[in-house]
């Protein structure tokens, strides 16, 4: 089953490149729904029977490439599948427009390549293939960001790509250090054979820096707003909801499955936590002062990604902390609910831009009257981002706040509390414009029904996931890869 998750999107990518017109859309939709079903089946299998590991072609661990699926990978695979399916459905009408039609061929093949690469990233089981897959993700993501071909988007894409490449190089150097010390590349064997010498600390540092450059943590966020703001709406949704989560997933794998606990990691974890705290406040503040809709949402991604990094000081600064499980679940939950809500926001923003022909918030008047469903979508996704009950964002922030208070690191509580307020600030800034009556009759061009529905479904998912917290917590605690002798995981 795991190999199908890589095979189907890659085949669909090739088909989309060859076929034309309606056939291409059909191939893409077929690929998307097959990948979705395969992800769901794999998730059900892991949920019932525990983590799986397969060796491709029958070659065992030291020689062949293994794919492993445990609770953590399954959750990210499902997130990718849901967002991916909805974005694909959204893109069929989006790329049949007059301006977008010439881009369709490149979009579909690059997006299917990206989907396949993301799936293999979530299934990867050795550190070197993690590097290769990271590069695949970066190349296809940067190509997608450059899709519209304007000077601004090309510059943004190249800036993103250069940063991502530098991050990958740091990651690869870290892989070299691991191999020099541990003599193995398998993620689940490195911990037991490497110990915690200076080489391993160096490797952890290089890999972490490389990955936070790709996940746009506070000092390395400079590439994100132009790249996400200039891209086409569905591309921004993919970049923000999935690509950033890919590098964060790898960061979790590396910190919790690969390396062993040492005194250095405690300090590194505090630094990551503080950077996350700054990111929450700074990104949300920047989002409030922007005047372009897509830039608001892009800066909001920086803030929302910041929450995820609070996990490290919560789990790692105290040995055998009682709130470990709660903090761990809270952060993964936040990653998922942010992914769903942000994808929905970007798709809804795409609808608004198509209807009003502008990205400027001030010229979007009376959208509540002309596009009620899109306004509803914006509000629902906003509720999840702010963390109001009963949304997924509420469950995440509630558990996060509880574990922060239990751990006594009260200064971290500024992130969920202040961050929630600032988030409300920019969501209401968008929504307040929705109810201003438009003076001129410039609004609005019609928006395809399917495009409005796809965004709405994602927003509803981001609320509903709050009701299915039990299953997610079960996957994250009882279905975590059994074979992890190393790592900080208890």
């Amino acid at each position, binding site marked *: 089953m795991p190999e199908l998750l890589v095979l189907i999107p890659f085949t669909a990518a090739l088909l989309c490149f060859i076929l034309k017109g309606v056939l291409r859309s059909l191939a893409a939709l077929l690929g998307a729904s097959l990948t979705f079903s395969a992800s769901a089946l794999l998730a059900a299998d892991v949920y019932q029977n525990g983590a799986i590991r397969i060796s491709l072609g029958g070659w065992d661990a030291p020689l062949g490439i293994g794919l492993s699926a445990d609770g953590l990978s399954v959750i990210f695979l499902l997130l990718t599948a849901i967002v991916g399916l909805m974005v694909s459905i959204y893109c069929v009408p989006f790329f049949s427009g007059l301006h977008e039609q010439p881009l369709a061929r490149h979009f579909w093949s690059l997006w299917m390549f990206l989907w396949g690469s993301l799936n293999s990233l979530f299934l990867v089981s050795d550190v070197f293939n993690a590097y*290769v897959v990271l590069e695949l993700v970066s190349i296809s993501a*940067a190509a997608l960001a450059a899709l519209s071909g*304007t*000077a601004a988007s090309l*510059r*943004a894409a190249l800036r993103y790509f*250069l940063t991502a490449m530098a991050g990958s190089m740091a990651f690869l*150097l870290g*892989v070299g250090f691991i*191999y020099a010390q541990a003599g193995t590349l398998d993620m689940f064997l490195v911990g037991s054979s490497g110990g915690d010498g200076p080489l391993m600390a160096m490797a952890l540092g290089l890999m972490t820096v490389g990955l936070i450059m790709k996940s746009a943590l506070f000092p390395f966020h400079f590439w994100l707003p132009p790249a996400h703001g200039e891209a086409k709406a569905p591309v921004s949704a993919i970049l923000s909801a999935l690509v950033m989560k890919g590098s964060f997933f790898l960061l979790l794998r590396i910190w919790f499955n690969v390396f062993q606990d040492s005194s250095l990691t405690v300090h590194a974890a505090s630094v990551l936590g503080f950077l996350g705290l700054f990111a929450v406040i700074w990104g949300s503040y920047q989002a409030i002062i922007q005047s372009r809709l897509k830039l608001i949402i892009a800066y909001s991604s920086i803030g929302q990604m910041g929450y995820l990094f609070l996990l490290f000081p919560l789990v790692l600064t105290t040995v055998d902390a009682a709130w470990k499980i709660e903090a761990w679940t809270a952060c993964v939950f936040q990653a998922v609910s942010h992914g769903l809500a942000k994808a929905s926001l970007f798709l809804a923003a795409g609808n608004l831009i198509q209807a009003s022909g502008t990205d400027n918030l001030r010229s979007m008047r009376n959208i509540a009257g002309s596009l009620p469903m899109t306004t509803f979508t914006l509000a629902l996704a906003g509720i999840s981002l702010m963390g109001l009950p009963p949304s997924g964002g509420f469950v995440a922030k509630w558990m996060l706040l509880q574990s922060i208070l239990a751990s006594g690191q009260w200064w971290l509580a500024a992130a969920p509390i202040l961050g929630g307020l600032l988030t409300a600030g920019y969501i209401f800034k968008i929504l307040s414009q929705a109810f201003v009556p438009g003076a001129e009759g410039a609004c609005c061009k019609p928006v395809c029904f399917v495009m409005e529905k796809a965004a709405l479904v994602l927003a509803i998912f981001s609320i509903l996931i709050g009701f299915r917290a039990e299953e997610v917590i079960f996957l994250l605690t009882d279905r975590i890869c059994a074979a992890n002798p190393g790592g900080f995981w208890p």
Partner: protein
Amino acid sequence: MNSLLIYSITATSLFTIGLMGLAAHPNLIRKIISLNIMAGGVFLFLISLAYHPDDPGVDPVPQAMVLTGIVVTISATAFALCLARRITEITGSSRLEDKPEDTDS
């Protein structure tokens, strides 16, 4: 001072020089070349791991990693050069301007 140490020091220096170039040079071609210098440093380090002074055999794993890494870097460089060429064609300048993008675009 064994040979592994010499290789590691050279490799990390190359990596650092490349990183500095990537951050400091405004010109796109220079940035891409700096990236390749970084990659060269990493590959030198990886390939130096294949040699063990007390073992006559050579470890094939680092060599396989370097081969794969070179292929990845070549494609990434080609892609970056394409983007850079397109930027020069459209704007006439070969820089990533650091001032914020035009709000009226």
